[in-house]
């Protein structure tokens, strides 16, 4: 786990030696630089390299951020699911921290999916919201993980909080395919006139490449945010231990 091992060595030690302002400065991590470079590359591929879509025009370019965000959101909740199981079987606090961090970041990605999806819907369908199956599924997903985060906020005891949220993390993830199925069937009962385009099989090669670049970039963003979030969690624990 590259996410786990590094931050411990990076920030903890210098603080103890002297309390001056200089000691607080954190060096820019190599990963941060890679992420910044990738974001620039991504911008090039999304806005310049990929051709304009014949039907949707420029608006189609929202997919290069929308679709990768959606994929990463599943990765995030998947990590929460697996870490929740790992926590319940091992009772090691680190699994709870990973589960919570990943759920928080997954919720962030879901929010982006919803925001960009709504903007696309407004441009193409003329409405911000429509009960399109995938968008609807993400809305339900978003609500579920808000519940997860709410439980974390309302249970003060760490061990109990970890057990409770692990149970929700497991049930919520199991529910994802069922949600998708139900929402999808529900919409076929009330057919939409607009057919989803953009990521079908006829997508030009250049678009596929841009999408792949987006996926790589946002995977790195996820890893970067996870490291940062775990770092914050570790420092919070450290502070609590000093104070107690």
């Amino acid at each position, binding site marked *: 786990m590259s996410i786990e091992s590094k931050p411990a060595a990076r920030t903890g030690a210098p603080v103890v030696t002297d309390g001056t302002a200089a000691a607080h400065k954190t060096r820019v991590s190599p990963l941060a630089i890679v992420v910044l470079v990738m974001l620039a590359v991504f911008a090039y591929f999304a806005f310049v390299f990929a051709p304009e879509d014949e039907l949707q025009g420029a608006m189609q370019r929202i997919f290069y951020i929308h679709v990768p965000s959606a994929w990463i959101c599943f990765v995030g909740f998947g990590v929460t699911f697996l870490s929740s199981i790992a926590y*319940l079987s091992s009772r090691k606090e680190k699994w709870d921290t990973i589960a919570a961090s990943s759920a928080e970041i997954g919720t962030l990605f879901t929010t982006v999916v919803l925001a960009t999806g709504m903007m696309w819907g407004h441009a193409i369908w003329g409405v911000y919201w429509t009960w399109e199956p995938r968008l609807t599924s993400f809305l339900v997903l978003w609500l579920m993980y808000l519940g997860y985060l709410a439980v974390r906020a309302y249970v003060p005891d760490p061990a*109990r909080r970890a057990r409770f949220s692990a149970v929700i993390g497991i*049930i919520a993830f199991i*529910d994802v395919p069922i*949600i998708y199925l139900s929402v999808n069937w529900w919409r076929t009962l009330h057919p939409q006139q607009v057919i989803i385009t953009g990521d079908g099989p006829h997508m030009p090669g250049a678009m596929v490449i841009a999408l792949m670049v987006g996926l790589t970039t946002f995977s790195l963003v996820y890893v970067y945010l996870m490291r940062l979030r775990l770092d914050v969690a570790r420092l919070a624990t450290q502070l609590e231990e000093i104070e107690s």
Partner: protein
Amino acid sequence: MVTVPRPSDLSLVDVGKTFGRHKVLRHVDLEIPAGSFVALMGANGAGKTTLLRLVAGLATPTTGAVTLAGVDLRKAGPGLRRMLGFVSHDGLLYGDLTGRQNLMFHARLFGVADPEARIEELADVLDLRRVLDRPAGVLSRGNKQRLTLARALMHGPDVLLLDEPFTGLDEESSARLVQLLTALHAEGRTIIMTVHEMSRALEGPTRLIVIGEGGIAVDEPIEALADLEVDEREDVLVGVVSDHVSRAGHGGRGPISRPDLPERPSLDEPHLAALTARPALVVPPGRFRSAGMITAKDMRVELRSRDVLMSSGLFAVTVLITASFTTVQSGNTGSMATGILWISLLFAVLLGVGRSMARESQDRAIEGLLLSPAPRESIFLGKLAAGLVTMGLIEVFIVPMFLVLMTGESQGSLDVGGLILAVVLATIGITIVATLFSGIAVGSRMGESLLPLIVMPVVIPLMIAAVETTRQALGGDTAGSVNMFQWYALLAGFDLVVGLAAIATFSFVVEDS
């Protein structure tokens, strides 16, 4: 120790317990051989209760292990749990049930062969006759304490744990309790009790353990203390026990003599013998029978209080009636009406299940279940079945009422079988999620009101499927490529998958609560 542990030898090896960042106990090593009578003292918050809860198996140690008869309590099976009896600070009783019903419930869960006779025995010795048929919730502190004692002694435990058992007892009852504990000790039972006053530690116990600063500060035979002058005795306790504790008890100078047991309330021999004798036990009920007992208990509580039937049932009725003013008028029945039906049923489940779990946390009654030999999943299954029975009673009224009020004359053919199947499958699914999450909601700072927030997103697939199947059972159009079989399969699939996950995870919700 190379010797084979005797059946009720207790040992704690390097036991630590942390709450959050607060280390209550650390590196506690204790050997308590079978037949010990231990008084446990320590300042408030020193960890006495935590230690007892660890030994009772209600809390799991953060580090180390507690073993009874050489078996780790975490892996305790029904047999091992029957060896323990716990008199907690809370009664672990259901306030809506009478004393007798509470005792009967525990006796059955523990597999006592002849519960009626055993209850009579205990009622005699503990002087419970007058209060046995009153609801436990209205009893005075002292009466409740004696009822709690009866509950803990019901199955004749080898190890009796008591958390401040003298609280709320008058002189006479206290003297009786001392006599009772001494008799149990003489029978070879292990007794561990926390006490607040030094004088109590001198009435019976043979060993004093004082907890201070997260560890064992004093561990001495009582005789060693009794021989000391009062001043010296206080030296032993100074800095370890709060002033409050060390000053309590005998104020005078001179060697302490064991306080004379008052002669008045002495128990006659046959009574005591009946009590200290072990009741005949049968094989404890299995998974499903335990679950059935818990369901029956829940239904008995509900019949007495009727608060779920009233709140959930009336809620659903009110929603339907209010909604019919808005939908029937505009002629918009169909999906809208079935949607309203399911919204009202969903909230009825949330209200009812939330209430039922809140009852379990009142007086920590659920810990009585956790102490019993019943498998953990039977608690879930029992609560689930009780929720379903209650909802069934409500739905028997609500669904026909919905048909009359909301569907109007437009209905073609009513598919009764399909309607019942839809209602049953969807109610099961919603109740599964609500039962599992109600433990979480009740354990949070927000309480039951957190329940809708975490349950509703998860049951959205059920709501969609329930509305579709109900609508078509009522003769709605069958447009769309998704056939009814798929919707019923989705309902059943949800119930199965989430149900299994809930059974697997429920113990994590209720443990250590």
